[in-house]
């Protein structure tokens, strides 16, 4: 991504995310098998493959159209917990970005924050509940700080990725309080959250290789 991000680059972001999900499908499912029902990789892959297909079919030209399409497709094809959550994330991002075709870093940070708020509104997760929140919130925070500091987009994304991966790793010792993993109580401790792992892949998909 460059300092302003084109719709084409956003489109590429979603396709890269789809590829990373496909590559990590089994790993995500294995994480979910340990503390959930073993379908998270399958769910995300089914959804993102459908999303890429929808992008191929409709070739949206604005940021809002692009994320709307991805969000709606996830909602319509995934089901389970991740369908509404990732779907809402992208719908809110799209709504926040509007009909623009060039997105600045601070717009991106604001949009992701809106997405995070959507996830909270939908799933009521709080920090430490061992969910996608725990990877996404630090990433959004890092983006916002970087934007305030006037950082380059690429650097900001690298910071966000580091934050997301830290957040993801931090879910391991957490006791789950939301989703299926919460049924396990104490036994959820010691396992990395699959949803948080997908969030780290999402940020990784946006992040250029280190300079």
């Amino acid at each position, binding site marked *: 991504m460059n300092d302003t991000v084109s719709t084409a680059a956003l489109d590429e972001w979603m396709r890269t995310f789809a590829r990373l999900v496909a590559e990590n499908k089994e790993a995500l499912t294995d994480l979910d*098998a340990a503390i959930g*029902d*073993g*379908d998270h990789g*399958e*769910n995300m892959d089914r959804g993102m493959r459908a999303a890429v297909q929808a992008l191929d079919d409709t070739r949206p030209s604005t940021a809002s159209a692009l994320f709307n399409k991805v969000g709606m497709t996830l*909602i*319509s*094809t*995934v*089901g*389970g*917990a*991740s*369908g*509404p*959550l990732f*779907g809402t994330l992208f719908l809110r991002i799209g709504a926040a970005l509007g009909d623009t075709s060039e997105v600045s870093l601070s717009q991106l940070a604001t949009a992701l924050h809106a997405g995070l708020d959507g996830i909270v509104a*939908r*799933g009521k997760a709080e920090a430490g509940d061992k969910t996608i929140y725990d990877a996404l919130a630090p990433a959004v925070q890092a983006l916002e700080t970087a934007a305030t500091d006037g950082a380059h987009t690429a650097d900001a994304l690298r910071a966000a990725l580091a934050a997301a991966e830290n957040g993801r790793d931090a879910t391991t010792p957490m006791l789950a*309080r*939301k*989703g*299926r993993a*919460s*049924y*396990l*109580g104490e*036994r959820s401790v010691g396992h990395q959250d699959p949803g948080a792992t997908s969030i780290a892949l999402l940020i990784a998909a946006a992040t250029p290789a280190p300079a």
Partner: protein
Amino acid sequence: MKKLINDPQNVVAEALLGIEAAHPHLRVDHEHKIVYRGDGPRRGKVGIISGGGSGHEPLHGGFVGLGMLDAACAGEVFTSPVPDQMLAATKLVDGGAGVLHVVKNYTGDVMNFEMAAELAEAEGGAKVLSVITNDDVAVQDSTWTAGRRGVGVTVLLEKIAGAAAEQGRSLEQVADIARKVNADGRSMGVALTSCTVPAAGKPTFELGEDEMELGVGIHGEPGRRRLPLATAGEIAELLVEPILADLPFAGGDTVICFVNGLGGTPLIELYVMYHEVNRILNAHGVQVARSLVGPYITSLDMAGSSVTLLKVDDELLSLWDAPVNTPALRWGV
């Protein structure tokens, strides 16, 4: 994995073809994977829909018909359906008096039904109310968890709310009855073996030859404890006592007693279980007014059983006794 299927990816779609062919009074929307009544919607009648992951048959598609559900949405195996399905079902069954969504308490189900209800509202369509079942006493009911799972009570609720809707009650009244059923019902289950999800191809969990999983969920979620295999009498105690303590049920209470099979356990064993459950209830002075014994909310091929008790008054009983005509529950017609 030994299953009577073709492609593991197509199990749900092909089972729906079977349901459609076997039950001429039902219709199937294959695009949205909805089973619905061929004689609906009826003007002025509240519509009732439910749905959830597949693999729990006859729940929910087998409960569509007169006096019970108007439509059921089938998700992938053990995966909540998507809002598009519930939205389409809501429209299909809307007779102008509103639509009740019966939702089992799982994060995915709750969120997907919620979005469907929002979409229906946004479209200015049917008025929608939702009732969530959360009767599984094996899970701690606290703000620190996703809450109790919806299990056996869902079956009883769909029957009773369906009868209330058939009587022409209003959406609010039907929702109230449904909430009452959920409030007064409790369940708990035990697995003797794991289930095997077709797409996974291997058992969801491992259980030793002498072990059982007490408090198991209907997706093979772990339960309260893993214990050495016990006798039917001991297992009945382990299931019934926590249920009785939880509401609490008390001597003199009248209940519907539902001994459910999880899919791989044959009926002869369920009757042995029923005898033990009934014995324990008698000892507590709890009166069984009606009983239901059989595999009604299953977990694919899991061997095991669950017990559901619902405290009933005359009104709930007469709604339970009202005519029903579905593939899995039928009487009075």
